[in-house]
């Protein structure tokens, strides 16, 4: 006879979900209790793919900012270099530092051709010495996504894919990001960065359709002791989403 817990464990193993018992470091909390409570792992887990995409592909900057923020959170969790793989050359480290990314640990890998991009991503994900990876990609086919997913499961390197193309498969989470108008304290000038984050997919939570995906409105704050997200008004409460969690 199997207990319910054993059955869950077996299913999650079949699904390829990272397992807290598999020896990987614990998930990296995003630092906002409302979000971390909804994620089944209590944060962004190691050993899986996370897709971050812009709500509107013509406005990619907020998604890039959220990816940089998440990479900074991952870097808090474990030592080693943090790697950013991209075909582009428009990354600006002083600005990344303003999102909490420790740029002295940043290694930028810039393949010359898109055919080398997948290889580079896989090479980085196979190295257990890396604290985290952001891959700036333009879509990936199912086989490629599956390969990366297997590589990150083997090494335990958390992989964030900043996707500018069609949606990916073999994911643990998918985030959609867009900018929100900021509010300045004095009513003049531009305030702190505000984003709308949508958890469009999350393994372990049944999200029937996009309308029911949890959405958070957050502000990035440079608080003492690190960067954090601060919740603004919410469209749907995390409790509601939590109730929809299915085993």
């Amino acid at each position: 006879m199997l207990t319910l817990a054993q059955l869950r464990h077996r299913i999650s193993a079949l699904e390829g979900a990272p397992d807290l018992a598999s020896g990987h470091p614990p998930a990296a909390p995003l630092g906002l209790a409302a979000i971390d409570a909804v994620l089944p792992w209590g944060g962004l887990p190691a050993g899986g793919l996370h897709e971050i995409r812009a709500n509107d592909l013509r406005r990619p900057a907020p998604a890039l900012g959220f990816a940089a923020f998440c990479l900074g959170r991952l870097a808090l969790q474990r030592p080693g270099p943090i790697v950013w793989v991209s075909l582009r050359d428009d990354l600006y480290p002083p600005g990344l530092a303003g999102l909490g990314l420790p740029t002295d640990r940043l290694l930028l890998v810039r393949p010359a051709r898109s055919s080398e991009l997948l290889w580079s991503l896989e090479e980085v994900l196979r190295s257990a010495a890396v604290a985290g990876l952001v891959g700036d990609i333009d879509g990936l086919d199912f086989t490629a996504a599956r390969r990366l997913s297997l590589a990150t499961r083997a090494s335990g390197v958390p992989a964030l894919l900043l996707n500018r193309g069609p949606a990916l498969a073999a994911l643990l989470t998918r985030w959609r990001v867009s900018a929100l108008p900021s509010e300045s304290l004095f009513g003049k000038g531009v305030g702190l960065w505000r984003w709308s984050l949508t958890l469009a997919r999350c393994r372990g939570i049944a999200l029937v359709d996009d309308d029911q995906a949890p959405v958070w409105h957050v502000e990035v704050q440079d608080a003492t002791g690190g960067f954090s997200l601060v919740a603004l008004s919410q469209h749907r409460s995390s409790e509601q989403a939590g109730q929809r969690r299915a085993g």
Partner: protein
Amino acid sequence: MPYLSTDRLNKPANAAPDEPLAVADSGAHRRLVALNRAAERVGLRPGMSVTDALAIRPSLRLTPSQPAEEEALLRRLAEWCVGYTPYAAPDSWRETINGAGLWLDISGCAHLWGGETALLDDLLGRLGRLGFSARAAVADSAGAAWAWARFGAGGMLQPGGQRNALAALPVSALRLHPESIAALTRLGLRRIGDLYGVNRAPLAARFGSAVGFRLDQALGDIDEPLSPLRPIDALVVQRRFVTPIGRGEDVEAAVAALLPQVLRQLERRQLGVRRLLLDLFRVDAACRQISVGTSRPSRDSKALFRLLSLKMDGLDCGFGIESLSLSAIETGPLPARQTDLTAPDSSESVAQLIDGLGNRLGFPRLQRFAPAGSHLPERAVRRLPPGAIPPPEPWPFLKRPPILLSRPEAVAVTAPLPDAPPLLFRWRETLHRVRAAEGPERLAGEWWREQSPARDYYLVEDQDGDRFWLYRLGLPGEFTPARWFMHGMFS
């Protein structure tokens, strides 16, 4: 190799070797520069004009001369000769004689081939089967071998026998300039032997030191160092196969067997590999080279083998590989260390990751960043090599975008006042209505560089909350209308 220029042409076409063939240069007066044996037999000589040659032999086949390709072929052959000795080099003396040459310093290598004669036979036999006619000589000194191969009978010169053997050869066997040879001939000094008794002082006064110098070189009185293709202190391990191998797996297995030998020797010298070169000598006298570099000295055979095998994918073995050699051409100090069996060294595996990526993508494609004391945004970042450890210096406490366009893009802007932030701007075909703006932040050009006008930077937020970094070039009123540029995007 007296007929290299024509052998090279005959080889692929497989034309009848007894048909006269000549290579002509491309000057105003076209002259023959090289001939094959059949062309020499009908009375043609290098230096003849093309018209004369065609009068003698109307059916002569002419091809234009391609010195660069001959040079490349000679270099490839020299690289292939590294299979005989690490000290192989192409001959660069072309003043007086046609036909290219190769230098091989076989001291200490001949016994591997069963003696000098056997080595010479093997070399000439292989070149002959490949369609290259060649003459070779072995002598005590490089100069004597040069002369004996081109003007003498070729083959072995007994140790110490060069003085007698060279005496009967013409002075042109001494690698002198044509004017010196002509002048010597006018004086009646036609043979090298004629020079033996001559007083050196008047000779030097008349011809410079070259004649005496070349004579001493030929007789072995002055040492003549060759400049080999490879660094001399490279550590080389070689393996020869009884039958040529052609499958990638076999090559990999052979490399896997050679690599520990190299590393063991390096360990004894407390060195680690910085650059490893794998030469694959093919049956058809071609040489494939695979080179891998590491970001710091390494003796990790598993990691190095992985780097090599990444580059061996899709290797063209041709008709088979008859020998291969592995050389550590760059090394660096790496003291022996006690390895910790319990915890893998994480800095070691970071170095492995960098090597793996760098060898495939090129090391300049991997970058780290550090602040570079400049207030201009595009100069505020210093790019460091991947192995460097950036100093933990903070960036200046300023609002900077995470995306900076490498080339600022012009935008059309509506601003109420010359020095006010914009109300509207059009960028990449989209109209943005500005909701909030911050600025200006005035950044003057660096006066010690070129004259460049100051820029006024504004952080603007549009109606959707997207944030941009715009600047106006020049002080208000200096340009009419003011020019605006998009430089970056905030997240």
